[in-house]
């Protein structure tokens, strides 16, 4: 017990004396959070808009004028072909399209609520979200003016005058803050434990202190526990900090149980701490360890559904994501944040995640030997 404790004390001292490392650990994720949050809320201008006016009436022209009168949208032109919309979006020429159905003005005049289709290119979820917001505003304004200009119009002031149907072709979930911030929690619980454990073990290898420790009676379990427990604690501290910033500052709704989140995070940490140990056994310098950790991380993030939704990947890659423990944890975290899921409903992700974690962790511990060369 004293042995593990001595290791822990030493580890904490070293972490807190390593200023550059400390700032990377604690400031980087919060910075990330801020950048992401602000990048997402900044104003988006000159959205390339295609109009498909199948009604060709005075009223429909009025709607289009509403979109032309602002520098938020650049009117690209008109089209009568729905296929063209798809093609132009694929070619990155249009970001949004407005489809005004035939009979729009007639239905509106009769007090029925006609539909306007707004098609948004969901690849850039952030822009798409903002564009939709603008469109709602412009259509709402149009509705108000429409009622104002027609004194004998009997409908109540038309807020629901125009219904929209939005279609996301690429990114059905519309990544937004609500979607991204829980993702950052996952990335954090990946980078921090993996980097800290890999770098600190490899550093000891590099400077020779690991060899020194290996000729002491310290067992490899004591050595690893003494090393990893401090990183586990630091990961939780950081998790608390980032969640506080996210919830208090960015008002990200957290609907689920904190206890459940902390418990499942613990199971996920087996994977990332285990990977850290593993990396330290296959590298011999901090630089190599850093590169290897980046490699693992990029793979996990790309193949985990953080940026690219898994549903939109080619089928082979989709299958490959089942091998990525991060995939499960991203689902778990988003479900806890957004849906207040119970442990029971999360089991289908929690079980494979834990299985991977225990497998990776125990193989890594076995690979970590109290010998050199």
């Amino acid at each position: 017990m004293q042995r593990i404790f001595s290791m822990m004390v030493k580890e904490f001292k070293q972490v807190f004396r390593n200023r550059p490392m400390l700032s990377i650990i604690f400031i980087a994720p919060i910075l990330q959070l801020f950048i992401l949050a602000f990048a997402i809320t900044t104003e988006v201008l000159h959205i390339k808009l295609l109009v498909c006016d199948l009604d060709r009436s005075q009223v429909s022209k009025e709607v289009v004028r509403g979109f032309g009168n602002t520098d938020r949208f650049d009117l690209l032109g008109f089209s009568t072909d729905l296929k063209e919309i798809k093609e132009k979006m694929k070619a990155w020429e249009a970001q949004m399209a407005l489809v005004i159905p035939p009979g729009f003005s007639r239905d509106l005049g009769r007090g029925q609520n006609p539909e306007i289709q707004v098609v948004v290119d969901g690849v850039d979820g952030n822009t798409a979200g903002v564009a939709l917001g603008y469109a709602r505003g412009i259509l709402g304004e149009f509705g108000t003016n429409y009622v104002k200009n027609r004194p004998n119009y009997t409908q109540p002031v038309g807020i629901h005058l125009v219904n929209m149907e939005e279609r996301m072709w690429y990114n059905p979930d519309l990544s937004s803050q609500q979607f991204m911030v829980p993702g950052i929690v996952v990335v954090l619980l990946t980078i921090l434990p993996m980097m800290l454990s890999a770098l600190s073990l490899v550093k000891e290898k590099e400077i020779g202190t690991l060899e020194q420790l290996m000729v002491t009676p310290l067992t490899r379990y004591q050595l690893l526990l003494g090393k990893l427990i401090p990183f586990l604690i630091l990961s939780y501290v950081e998790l608390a900090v980032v969640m506080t910033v996210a919830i208090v500052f960015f008002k990200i709704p957290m609907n689920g149980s904190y206890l459940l989140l902390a418990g499942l995070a613990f199971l996920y940490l087996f994977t990332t701490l285990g990977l850290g140990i593993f990396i330290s056994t296959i590298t011999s310098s901090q630089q190599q360890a850093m590169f290897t950790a980046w490699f693992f991380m990029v793979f996990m993030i790309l193949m985990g559904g953080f940026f690219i939704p898994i549903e939109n990947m080619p089928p082979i890659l989709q299958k490959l994501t089942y091998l990525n423990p991060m995939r499960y944890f991203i689902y778990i975290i988003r479900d806890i944040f957004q849906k207040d899921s119970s442990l029971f409903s999360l089991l289908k992700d929690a079980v494979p995640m834990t299985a991977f974690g225990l497998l990776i962790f125990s193989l890594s511990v076995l690979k970590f030997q109290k010998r050199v060369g």
Partner: protein
Amino acid sequence: MPEISVKTENLVRNFGSFVAVNQVNIEVYQKEIFGFLGANGAGKTTMIRMLCGLLKPSSGKATVGGLDVYRQSEQIKRSIGYMSQKFSLYEDLTVEENINFYGGIYDLNQKRIQKKRDEIFFSLGMGDYARTLTYDLPLGFKQRLALGCALLHDPRILFLDEPTSGVDPKARRDFWEIIHQTVALGTTIFVTTHFMEEAEYCHRVFIMDAGKIIALDTPTKLKNRYKKKSMQEVFVTLVEKQQEKKTNPMPDSNDKMS
């Protein structure tokens, strides 16, 4: 017959097809300073690592303190001290913190750690540096601290791999002073060095070349045998002889060719 601390029989270690330690047989006695000489790459560190349980031998036998290096390496680790060739204390911890840390790792109680700390501070003259980061210590003191830490748990056998490399002559003398005191208390010392005047301080020396023993005796006997005044000359003569053997495996074949 003195008690045997370290014994090897035909000990071999290969790295791939390269033989770093080749069929080495030695016996080291209790309370002996056993010097281990050899050019760079001779296999000294490899030999020490095998004896400390850091490296598995490829073949042969070895016991340390009567314990087998294959099966009992963890028990061996309780009774040995090791100072590796590379300085390996934590430079971002203070002198005091390093001592406390290793004391904790060796499971010494607080009283014992305190006592050892005082010993290192006073007898090794490090009192002024207690709160200094190890990084900022002069090299001579770093080595001394490393020795102090390797001795915290009163090991019966101490392995020192080039403990004085890079240290000035005065600091080296002081260091050997401590080694002699330690031996007087009953510890066996197994030490590698490149400094021939240090070889003179050893009870017996063992000269190795390319993984093989080329000489093993007391410094006096070696000097007499090769009719040299110093170990320096003995070493150079022996190593040169080996070189000749390697470049001219059959000396007279050259004559026939020309």
